[in-house]
């Protein structure tokens, strides 16, 4: 088996490999979904903290001038926007949406990560470490969802392509850089919350006999 790390993600995968190879020690799907939800919860928590940390020293500079959420590179993806809609979406579609959003952030997170190191912001080291943590969680979660979706069928495995076209350079001057950084973080916060919500709805639906998981 792959080297075991403390991180839940690796354990997640190892558990899944158990399922594949050894039926007796199979990890139930509920358990995998639970772990995935915990990871997405952590991601959402981190992105929330990041936006708060940015705001603490960077009061919204002309909120009106900031790019709108509609300008997020993932906004083209049609997602449920309230509870009723979310409860009507099929499990496969929920999984596909979560995976598409997760995949869409691989490149931008890398851009954020490199930019954070030289960010003109007093908390840049704390911000930088949170972004790295986000990247790790994102990777682990993506791996886990790959395996989960494999159990759910082809429609769960379909990923919508949402390319990030913002480039690797956030700008030249301090204001532009901070604005762009802030904007990306707000998009990330929104998308990480979507991923978290969809996975938790999925988890609750899969655990019909265990209401405490909801």
């Amino acid at each position, binding site marked *: 088996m792959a080297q075991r790390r403390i991180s839940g993600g690796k354990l997640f995968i190892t558990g899944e490999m158990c399922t594949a190879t050894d039926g007796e020690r199979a990890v139930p799907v509920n358990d995998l979904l639970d772990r995935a939800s915990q990871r997405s*919860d952590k991601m959402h928590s981190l992105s929330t903290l990041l936006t708060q940390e940015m705001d603490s020293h960077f009061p919204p500079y002309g909120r009106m001038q900031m790019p709108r959420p509609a300008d997020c590179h993932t906004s083209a993806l049609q*997602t449920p926007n*309230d*509870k009723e809609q979310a409860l009507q979406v099929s499990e496969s579609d929920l999984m596909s949406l979560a995976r598409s959003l997760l995949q869409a952030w691989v490149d931008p997170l890398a851009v954020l990560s490199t930019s954070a190191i030289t960010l003109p912001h007093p908390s840049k080291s704390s911000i930088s470490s949170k972004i790295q943590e986000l990247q790790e969680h994102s990777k682990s979660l993506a791996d886990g969802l790959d395996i989960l979706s494999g159990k759910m069928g082809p429609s769960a495995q379909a990923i919508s392509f949402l390319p990030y076209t913002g480039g690797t350079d956030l700008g030249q001057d301090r204001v532009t850089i901070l604005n762009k950084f802030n904007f990306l973080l707000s998009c990330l916060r929104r998308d990480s919350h979507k991923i978290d919500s969809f996975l938790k709805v*999925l988890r609750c639906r899969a655990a019909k006999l265990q209401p405490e998981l909801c």
Partner: protein
Amino acid sequence: MYNARMRTHLGLVILCVLSAARVCSSTSAPESPRKFDCRSREKETFSCWWEPGSDGGLPTEYRLFYTQERLREVRECPDYVSAGANSCFFDKKHTSIWAEYTMTVVATNALGNASEEFRITDVMEYVKPDPPVNVTVVVNSSAPSPFLEIRWKSPPDVDVRTGWVTLKYELRVKQNDSKEWKTVDIGSETFFNFYNVYPGLLYMAQVRCKLDHGKWSEWSNTIFAEIPKNCKPTVVTEISFFYLDHQVEKIPLLMGIYILLLKRNVVKQCLLPPVPGPKIKGLNAHLLKSGRSEDVVNALMGNQNFPPVAAWTEQVEDFLLVSDSDEWLLTDSFASEKNKDIFIIPAGLHLGLEIQCRDLSVDLNTWEKTDDSKEEAKSNFLNMEPINLPVEKHEFLNGEEMSIQPLANTSYVDIQQHPTLTDYSRVKEVNDNTILILNEEEIPHGLDAEEVKSEVSVPDDYSRVKEVNSDVVFLEKGDSADKPIMPLESELSKGFCLKMIASGYVDSGPAFSVK
């Protein structure tokens, strides 16, 4: 008459002025509303409030229009009433999460209007649930100490059954007269057992919740609980009860104990008759008393396969503790000296013996300076010159012969390159307890021999040793089991210690010797 006309004129003028003034101050369009805030209690609906500006003295109407991120059309607020004055309530049908709302509030009166635009980036930013409800506390008085069973329920309008919402709770408890709260993160459960309470004190507790990493709710109602004083006492209390409250009953018991103490020898004979001691082959009980523990050890371990050694032999059989000095060897001449035999004990068995570690790069001859009796052994043992060492045979206490290969010296530093220790193959049997353990400064976790042997590098020449029948084992300790076997030199350069637990080298150990 003149005065009356004057007064009337004056009154009219005043009236005109007043009415003109009144007309002047009321004629203005309203100011635009300011301060816009919203709140969602359950991630399904939300309300927004604005603060009206000046109304210009005329009845002013406020209307809210909004667009959503995905909607092209402009809509008007669906409900101006449910959330109170100057508010707009968006019900489930009109609430979209993760969508941007652009709100425009227009104030209108007879003379004009004014508007202001407010942007709600995401309703989630305004989520703040109601506090938890039905908070109850029960004092549980069961052993060993009392605790508070605190329970609560999620706020009623939050739907926790579908997974759409994740509630997390926080509890805080404090003594009634204390200023500091003890706060506990709860997760998603709706109960908690709080143990840090003491009898006779009054406690208060509150709970709050947050939804999906949003804002915390207000604290719930405070609940109070008093721990009764006659709860089951803790151990300390019990002892105090024993001593303070039950003196009278214990007096006869104390007297009995006193008598027993006086006659303890008799009692001992009665209750604990002497048990015949164990008979160990080769062990003479008198040896124990005579203090020559080296005999004891030899008798215990002399002829037997020391289990760890037997297990190690496959890996470590190639390692022999060899000295090139007669003085160090287990000869008859040693019998009269106490400090010549070296007993090396697996690292796991410290035996409380003092271990001195030195970097082997240090001149090993200076390793021990505490004892004259150690000098000779030390110099021999630490004399690390590769030589061809003759096998020597010696008689020992138990009359068995022991072949000892003289100790190699620098070979311990450079064993892998040791080409000349072919004579080791002659050693068929080593009947003594000479074990050398090469250790790090500290023995981390009592690594036992099993672990150690994985670290040992095996010079080719040692492989010729067929059998090591006693405790002559050369063990080397590595940093961790994960590391591959490395050349001895580099291992040693890391500060490995040459540890020998031998009578002569240990300050406090017993003196072992073999006759």
